[in-house]
Each structure stands twice: as C-alpha cells, then as structure tokens.
C-alpha cells in the first residue's frame, strides 16, 4: 500500500502550488478595466523592459487622470516573463484564462511577442505588441504593432536609408554590410544587400557574426581593407560600440556608418560614435515634440527615468513604440466604446490612430501600415533625426566626416 503520509504531503504540495495562482484570479465584471501583459523584467532582456514598464506606468496614470476608459479606472497587471518565451506564453494563458483580464498588452521581444500572439489567437483576444520587428511572422489578424516598420521593412527601411544618403554631395558608391545573426536584425541586413544591388551600390564586403560575439577585431580589419564608402552595421545593443572601438584600434574611421538597433546611450556618448547613424521612430526634438502629448510624455519620462536611475533617460524608439501601443489600445476602446476584441480589431483595420510617432494605419500585410522608420545621427553627443527632411531636427542634415 502506498504510504498515506506521503500521499497527503504530495497533495498538500500540489494544492499549495495551485493556490499560488488561483489566489490572483479575480472575477470579471465592473470595477477597473484590467489590462494584462508581460515584460522581461528579469533576465537578459531586462534593461529594455524597464523603459517599457516606466512608459506603461506613465500612460496608465495619465489615462486614469483623464477619467480612465468607458468611465472605469484602468489597472495594468504586468508580470515578469523572465526573458523566456515559454514563461511569456504561460503568463498570457494565466492572464486570459485565470486572471480573466479585459484587454491584452503585448511584450516587446520577438520570441515573447510570438508566444503572446499564439495565446491571444487561441482565445480570440486582440493584442498589441510594442516592438515586433519581423512583420512576416505576425500572422494573427487581431495583432497590431506599436512599431511602425511597415509590412516589408527589409525592403523599405534600406530604401529610406539609401535615399537619405543619396542626398549627400558625395553619395556612397560602395557598401560593406556586416551584421549580427540576431533574427530581427539579420533579415534587415539581408534585405539591404538586395536593395543596395538594385540601387547600384557596389557591395565590397558582406560579413556575419553570431549574436554574443565579443571579438570585433577581425571584422574591423576586413572592413578597413574593403575601403567602403558606407558601412551598414546590423547590430543590436552594444555590438556597434564594440565594432567602432575595434576600428579605432586599427586607426580606421568609417566614412559613413549606419547602425540598426544600437544601445542609444553608449552610442551617443562614445567618441568613436560621432557621426554614426541609426534607425528611429522618435527623438526628443521638433517636430516630434510639437505634438503636445509627445511633449508631455517626454517631460514626464525624463523625470521618472532619472528618478528610477535608468542609464538613458531620453525618449527614443523603445519608449515611443511602447507609448504608441498604449495609444492604439486607448483609441480602439474609445472609438468602439467597448472592450469587444473583434470590434476593436475591425475598427483598427479600418482607421488610423494618431500616435507620438505619427499616424499609424493597420490595413496592409499582417496589420502593418506605413514604414515610419527614420534616420538619426549622433551629432555633438546627441541623437538628432536627419532624414526624412520633414522629420529632421530643425536645421539638421546628415553630416559626413
């Protein structure tokens, strides 16, 4: 016979585990509107998550100060997915089936976003993601992106970059493309090769490195030998800084260099990075800050980020995409005057939403709309938008060395 004591202990553990979670379940009904989501608050992606968390808190506070939604206060239930897609999936399952939240807000990293989209799809919930950078993978018809990269950024983003550079008195004729194999970066760099070829830019070098690489010396040497007019760097985080430092060690300064997703603070402050360009959807200057909502958000974010000890306190792509995601959700609820996911999704597909990065629409492939990516450049240790002209900081143009 099985030991009764052991069985009882096992049952107690099982019940205890179950109790951990069921205690959080709250019945649906009146009271605050509950919006659930996850962020990578711990783990390797946690540095960026703090920007999104701060943005969400600022937005919810502001929303409630404006009376909330549908006459109800709004409550944001944010959980830590620990930078793991499988945990993100389970937490979204919990938010939908156990916590029974009213609305979903997505996470920001590709793996976690795809996990959350899968859950939303199974339960017919609308979900808005912060920075889903590979539109081809976001096939759910009630997923909406807060980051306006367009349905085919691998075609449109390089076009934006090369068109900007074509305005220079001496446009680049040769290009070296070096890129991380990080998925959301790699496909853009591969796209850039094709676009460069079509535009008559001669590719003198194409190199890839594995995400996590720390030795950029050989890559810097190969770039120097290739003597390109333009270096396209498919980097993420601090990779771009490490490459530029490696170039400095061999006394090489690239004439023009564009980076995809560098860490904004370190790139702006490094002496080697002066003149480096990158992609953006928002920077803290006119004309972006002509929008009073944006100006207010920038002011609040700067103060709160400083108080929270964030290393970079300015609003740029991550915070702007996150803020836009909240704006999309608010717009959908207000326009439909309901929390019905299908109604809100239908409305978003048919209408535009005014956000701090510009007007967003969701009527093209996989609910993506226009590609609003812009080019920014480090000038005097500050990021300024330099292309397209209508979004450039007052008087700012692309500077060459």
């Amino acid at each position, binding site marked *: 016979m099985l030991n009764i004591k052991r069985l009882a202990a096992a049952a107690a553990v099982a019940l205890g585990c179950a109790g951990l979670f069921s205690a959080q379940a709250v019945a649906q009904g009146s009271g605050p509107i509950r919006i659930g989501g996850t962020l990578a608050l711990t783990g390797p992606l946690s540095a960026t998550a703090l920007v999104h968390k701060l943005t969400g808190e600022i937005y919810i506070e502001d929303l409630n100060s404006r009376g909330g939604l549908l006459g109800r206060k709004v409550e944001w239930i944010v959980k830590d997915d620990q930078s793991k897609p499988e945990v993100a999936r389970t937490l979204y399952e919990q938010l939908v089936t156990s916590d029974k939240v009213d609305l979903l807000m997505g996470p920001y990293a590709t793996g976690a976003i795809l996990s959350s989209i899968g859950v939303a799809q199974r339960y017919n919930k609308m979900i808005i993601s912060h920075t889903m950078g590979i539109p081809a993978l976001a096939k759910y018809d009630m997923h909406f992106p807060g980051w306006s990269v367009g349905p085919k950024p691998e075609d449109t983003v390089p076009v934006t970059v090369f068109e900007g550079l074509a305005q220079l008195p001496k446009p680049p004729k040769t290009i070296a493309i070096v890129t991380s194999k990080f998925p959301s970066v790699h496909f853009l760099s591969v796209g850039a090769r094709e676009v460069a070829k079509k535009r008559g830019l001669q590719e003198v070098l194409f190199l*890839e490195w594995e995400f996590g690489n720390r030795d950029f010396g050989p890559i810097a040497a190969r770039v120097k030998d290739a003597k390109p007019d333009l270096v396209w760097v498919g980097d993420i985080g601090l990779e771009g800084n490490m490459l530029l430092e490696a170039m400095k060690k061999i006394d090489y300064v690239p004439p023009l260099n564009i980076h995809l997703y560098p860490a904004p603070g370190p790139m702006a402050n490094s002496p080697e990075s002066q003149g480096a360009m990158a992609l953006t959807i928002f920077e803290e200057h006119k004309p972006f800050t002509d929008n009073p909502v944006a100006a207010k958000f920038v002011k609040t974010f700067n103060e709160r980020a400083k108080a929270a000890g964030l290393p970079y306190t300015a609003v740029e792509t991550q915070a702007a995409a996150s803020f836009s995601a909240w704006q999309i959700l608010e717009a959908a609820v207000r326009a439909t005057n309901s929390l019905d996911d299908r109604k809100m999704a239908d409305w978003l597909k048919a209408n535009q939403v005014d956000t701090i990065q510009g007007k967003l629409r969701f009527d093209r492939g996989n609910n993506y709309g226009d590609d609003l990516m812009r080019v920014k450049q480090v000038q005097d240790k500050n990021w300024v938008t330099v292309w397209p002209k209508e979004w450039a900081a007052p008087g700012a143009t692309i500077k060459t060395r």
Partner: protein
Amino acid sequence: MDRRILTAIVAGGIALAVLPWIGLPAFYESFLYLLFHWIILAVSWNILSGYTGYFSFGHGAFFGAGIYGAAYMAGTLGWPFLASLPVAALVAVALGLALGAVVFRVASVRGELFALLTLAITFVIATIILNTRIDGGPGIYMMGVDIPKLGPNQASSIYMMGLILAVISLLVAYMIYVSRFGAGLFAIHDDEDVAEVMGVPTYRFKLYALAVSCALAGLAGGVHSVFVSYITVSEVFSITVPLSVVLMSILGGSRHWFGPAVGAVAITCLLYFFTSGDGAVLGRAIFGGILVVVILFMPNGILGLFSLLKRMKRKPATEHVVPHAAPAPEKAAKIGAPILRVRGLSKSFKGLKALNDVTLEVREGEILGLIGPNGSGKSTFINVVSGHYRNDGGSIEFMGRELSGQEAHFFAQAGIARTYQIPRPFVNKTVLENIAMAGMFGAAALSREAAMHEAHEFADFAGLGDRKDALPDDLNLHQRKFLELARALAARPKLLMLDEVLSGLTPSEINGAIDMVRRIRAQGTTIIFVEHVMRAVMALTDRIVVLNHGVLIAEGLPAEVMSAPEVKTAYLGKAHA
C-alpha cells in the same frame, strides 16, 4: 522493482490526463506543461550525470538538437509533427553517442574536464545550426505546424504530450535506478576503475545512459518547439537550460531517481511565484537566496536529506565484528590442473619495468603465495591479471581463454576477482549494495534481486551481518578489509586475488582472517595470496612465488622457497663482508 511505485507513476499520469476535460482554466495546463518539461529535462540529465557522476553541461546541446530536429522537419520541411519527434530523439542520441564514443574512452576526461567539454559542444552545435540551412539566422517559425489532437484544443494536446513524456521519463528513471544497469551506473559514479574491474562494462553503460538521457532531452525539445513556436539559436542554446537542470537535480537530490523531479517542481513553482511585475528583481533575489540556503544546508538535496534521516533512525551497529562460522580444515582442497597461465608478462610505467617477463601458473584449488619486497611488482601483477592495467607484453590465459588486451570487466566475468590493498568500496553504497555489485557483475552474473539476496550471506560470512546498511565511511579499517573480501567472494570467482588483506589487522583479527581464507579455499576457490605477514603465508599457501624488481626469482613449496639464497638476498640484501 517495486510495482507500487510504477503503479503510482502511471496512476498519477492518468489522473493528470483528465485535467483538460474537467474545465479548469487552460493556464493550469500551460503551467503544468512547464513542470513536465523541466521534470523531463532534469530527470534525463540525472540519468547520465546524477547516476554516473559524469557532470554534463551539455544538456542544452541535446535539448537543442531535439528542438531543431523537430523544428526543421516539421517547421521547415513540413513533415507531420509526430513523425518529427522520433527525428528529434534520434538527432540528440546520435549527437550524444558521437560525443560519448570518443570522450568515454579517454580516462582523463572526467570531472570538470567532461563538464567543460560538454559545454563546448553546446556552442559548437549552436554555431553549426546558426551557420547552416537548419536555421541560418532568422529562426524557425512553428505557429502553423499542425499537432496531433490529444486534447480538446492545441494547448491541451501539448500538455498531453508533455505529460506522457514526463511519465515515461519517470518510469525510465525509476526502472534504471532499481535495475542491474542502474547499480552499475552508480558504481561508476563512486569509483569507475573498481566498477570496471568488478565486471561493470563501464564504457557501454555510460554510452547507454547517455543515449537514454539524450533521447528524453531530444523528445522534450521536440515538444517544446511547438510550445514556444518560434525557435532561435540564442534562446535555445542559452546557458539557462543546463544550469537550470543541474540546479534542479542538485536541489532535489541527484542520487535519487525522483530527486530531479522534486527539484524541477520546486524551482519552477518558485520562479513562477515571483512573476509579479512589482518587485520582480527582488523576487529573483529572494529565489536565489532560498536556493543558496537550501543547497548549503542540504548538500545532498531534499531527498538526500530524507535518506540521511532514514538511515539515522536505524539502530547503531557494534564496533567489533567477528566472522561467525565454524573453523575451517587445515588444508582440504584437491590441487588440480592450471587454471591461470601467465607467460612472459611485462608491464612498464614510463620506462620502469614493474613486471619483467613473468611466467607462472596457478593450479585449480591451490593457494599460491605471491611475495616479495616492497616495489617488487606484486600489486602490479594483480592489477594486470585483474585487467586493471593492460599488459605490455606476454599473455594471460585463464581457463583456456586468452584475456590479455581485453577490458577489465571481461576478466571479472571470466571468474577473476580481487581485493584492494587499500580498500576501495563504493562509498555511497551500503555494505549490502557493495557486496551485491560483485554478485551482479562478476562470474555469478546474478539478477539484482538474487545478488541482494546472496549479499546477506556473504555479509554474514565476513562478519558484517550487523552492518549491512552502513555506508563504508562508517566502517573501521578491519570491517572495510572484510567488506573487500565479502565483495570479492560474492562474485563467486574461480580465482581470487587477495592483496594484503591482513595488513593493519591485530593478531586475533589475523587469526580470524586466516581461518576465513581457508574456508574460502575449502569451497573450491583458487587463491593468489599477496601478503607480508609471513605467519599467514606459511600457514596458508601451497606454493610460493617470489618477485623482485618485477622478475620472478623463486617458485616452489613454501619452506623451500623461503630458504632459497636469492630470496633471502631479495629481502635482506647481499652480505658484502
């Protein structure tokens, strides 16, 4: 094998299989799937690393090989998902066997070197996958992959697959744990060289354990590919997987089949408990603190602590033990034809000839004394004839079968057993389990149950009847010497080599031991008796062989040999005056 445990595992699985149909929020399925996932990984890691002591950091590689095996077949090539699962397992097994076939042959690659090597393999596999068409950089998207309908919806189907695999993993872990194979694995963990000499085919067993471990990890990876739905190299091959499974197994207790499952449940629940957005970092710090405290105060894990408490409850044993058997006849056995023929046996260590062209015979039923001064090559002779060392030259013919060049376990299985001068028991096995090992893997080749049953008799014979459940560390030197003897006898050897079993014993203990050796011989066992206690040599041996500097210098009846001038010279030195 305890059928109640098997029934409990299966019954638990059946009870949990009902969950998708009873209307609980689907989140519970998702969370339980995560538990199953980590149970499979931790249990599978433990089958290699916990059981054999080969601490692997490469479980991420085998898991990753499974994920990509399934993802490539189902996600890229469009195979049916179920058909991709065997591929996931096979890819992981092939990787593991390719690694093990090389690494397990190199005696120096144990401990931290093995751990580092397996970690390196993870990075190698990640690099290959990232730089070939298997992934190439963009990752593999699995959202559109159809999975077999095992539950009301897709999530519950994944839950069911995880549950089935977890049940299989636990059954496999338990059945190995209580099997002869499992006993061999745990012996490898404690002392691989002794295990091999005792008859455990260590190389083969390690490969089998690795294959089982890889297969389960590969299957876990295959199922997990549809759970996460987007597969990227950086996430799959992160250090998180191997670190987590190691931590889970250690926390739960890696010497117990169920320990890793306990650790997996504890850590997954703890991690999940701290997913609230407010104070997430603080939560992780508390989680880390709990782990540190638990590991500090429970170094053998949660189940290890239970085992310790259980052992402490048993009655303390007596300090002195005396073999309780009737006195043996003075010289009883009939001397027969030679069963061991050693011709021209040589063994060198970095140029030093420890054995130099030694030729001798051992006849059935006799006690052959093997003596010589320190460093004369006696222990080397035993090490070579037991297969512990390979001979450089010459031949070893045992019962008409040539053994030189064979692995050590063949020697044991052929009927040769030995004791060690300094006892080398399996330190984590009880007296009874130590003795049963020889019964299972020596010439007797008994089943585990039969060997455990017989071990009682040999423990009693060696006077260890009151200490059957004690660990070797709890025995005194005398008892450990007798444990060596009981263990060698349990193999039911044709030839028993006793390497200084009397050293360190008191005169009365020596008398008891002499009596015991006589009784062993009386049962028909041939004995090579290496000893410095000349009183015992003269009392016991039928013939004596003398080695000096690795060379056989005398052979014959005890009285004749001991009076030979070259023997006196070897022991006392040459008179120059």
